[in-house]
């Protein structure tokens, strides 16, 4: 079997592999034959190529500084000392004093979501102010890099706030919501001596709190008007009537002239008080 003679272009493309001894036996043989027989200067080209690589390989090495190892070890020790003085993890200390507003307001936010009531601009402002307080506390209370502090403060503020909100919600099973109880005036579109057909409540601060209409169990009122009603003492007691939206019962805890209506869910959890 006879192989095709190698041309000059192919031969010169194999110079690099030849100098690295990276040719197959067949390639090496063909190249040797070509270099022996070539009349177009491939032998000279090979000589130039080989000299070039030899010159590069013969460049004298740079001598390391005699104190090189010691300097490296000094740098390593300096790094270790620096690391020893730095906290292993990145603790973010968020002072409770500044974070409590965040947690409390986040908990209230959760309550609002639960009740489906709209959030007023005032509520939102409270929450933002509380969040800002917690956020600033997170920044001031940590020793880590600023970006880490920012992220940690945000995450801790929100997550912690929701956690505290959950805690507050659970605790409310046993205790009424003090900030809402007894501070609300019931106002309804009603008629004197008639029945309440709509209960729209606001807190003392004027915050919308509840708006019930439709299937409201009968509540007798002493007098009525466009802006307020007063519930009679004989309404005190449990009423098994079912409210729309999951409200299981109502209990009027009132005395003449002071409306306090407490409603609970079917599981006994306070839904709201006004």
């Amino acid at each position, binding site marked *: 079997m006879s192989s095709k003679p190698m041309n000059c272009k192919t031969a010169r493309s194999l110079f690099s592999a030849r100098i690295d001894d990276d040719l197959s036996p067949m390639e090496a043989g063909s190249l040797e034959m070509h270099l022996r027989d070539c009349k177009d200067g491939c032998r000279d080209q090979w000589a*130039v190529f080989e*000299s*070039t690589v030899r*010159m590069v390989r013969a*460049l004298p090495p740079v001598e390391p500084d005699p104190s090189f*190892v010691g300097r490296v*070890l*000094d740098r390593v020790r300096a790094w270790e000392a620096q690391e020893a003085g730095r906290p292993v993890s990145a603790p973010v200390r968020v002072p409770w004093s500044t974070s409590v507003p965040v947690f409390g307001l986040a908990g209230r936010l959760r309550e609002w979501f639960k009740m489906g009531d709209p959030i007023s601009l005032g509520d939102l402002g409270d929450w933002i102010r509380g969040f800002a307080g917690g956020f600033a506390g997170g920044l001031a209370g940590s020793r880590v890099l600023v970006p880490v502090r920012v992220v940690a403060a945000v995450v801790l503020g929100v997550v912690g706030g929701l956690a505290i909100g959950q805690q507050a919600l659970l605790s409310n099973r046993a205790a009424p919501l003090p900030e809402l109880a007894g501070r609300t005036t019931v106002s309804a579109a009603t008629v004197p001596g008639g029945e309440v057909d709509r209960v729209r409540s606001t807190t003392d601060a004027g915050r919308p709190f509840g708006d019930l209409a439709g299937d409201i169990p009968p509540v007798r009122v002493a007098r009525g008007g466009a802006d307020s009603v007063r519930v009679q003492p004989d309404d005190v007691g449990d009423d098994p009537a079912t409210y729309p939206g999951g409200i299981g019962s109502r209990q009027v805890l009132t005395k003449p002239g002071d409306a306090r209506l407490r409603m609970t869910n079917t599981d006994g959890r306070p839904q709201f008080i006004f």
Partner: protein
Amino acid sequence: MQLSENKVTVPLFSGLPDEELMEHVVRNSEAAFAMLVDRYRGRIINLVCRFINDRERAQEIAQEVFLRVFVHRERYRPSGKFSTWIYTIAANLAKNEIRRRVRARGVVSLDGLLEVTGDSSRFLADPGPRSDQRVRQREVREWVEGAMQAIPEKYREVIILRDMQQLSYEEIEQVLGIPGGTVRSRINRARAALQEKLSGLVEGGIDEL
């Protein structure tokens, strides 16, 4: 206690391969680390120096290479060769240095790159006749070093790794993270580019260093 230079070589570690030394380094053995530094300092300094053509700065960058080896010692995987790992770190730091210099000077042209990586005037000027053998050797060496800086970085790095550091094709693959076929073709082109730059010297018969 600070180790002095002549206390670095600890007989316990002197016969261990690099990978086993690294196991001791991971366990915070300073002596094992010093042994590795001693073993690789020449190679790393030369590698960096050939990249940036600056001997003083090469010493500093080489120190940084070893510091990173120690700092990131737990990232080293014993399944791989230590030499390719440290060469990868060194090559990356050297290339970063070149880019930093280019950025610092706002250089974008080839001439500008030569200026920040080497003395282009020596490469571009005719060496001229010199009778003194040592002077001529130094001149030729400077020509070769200038030619190294005159070829593209991707060619220079394979020449450094293959012809100066004697890495195998497979090791170069790992250090540079490129396929074997690319390594071979790039070495081929790099040598051709160098041959072109040095053709005047070689064809003139000045090929000794």
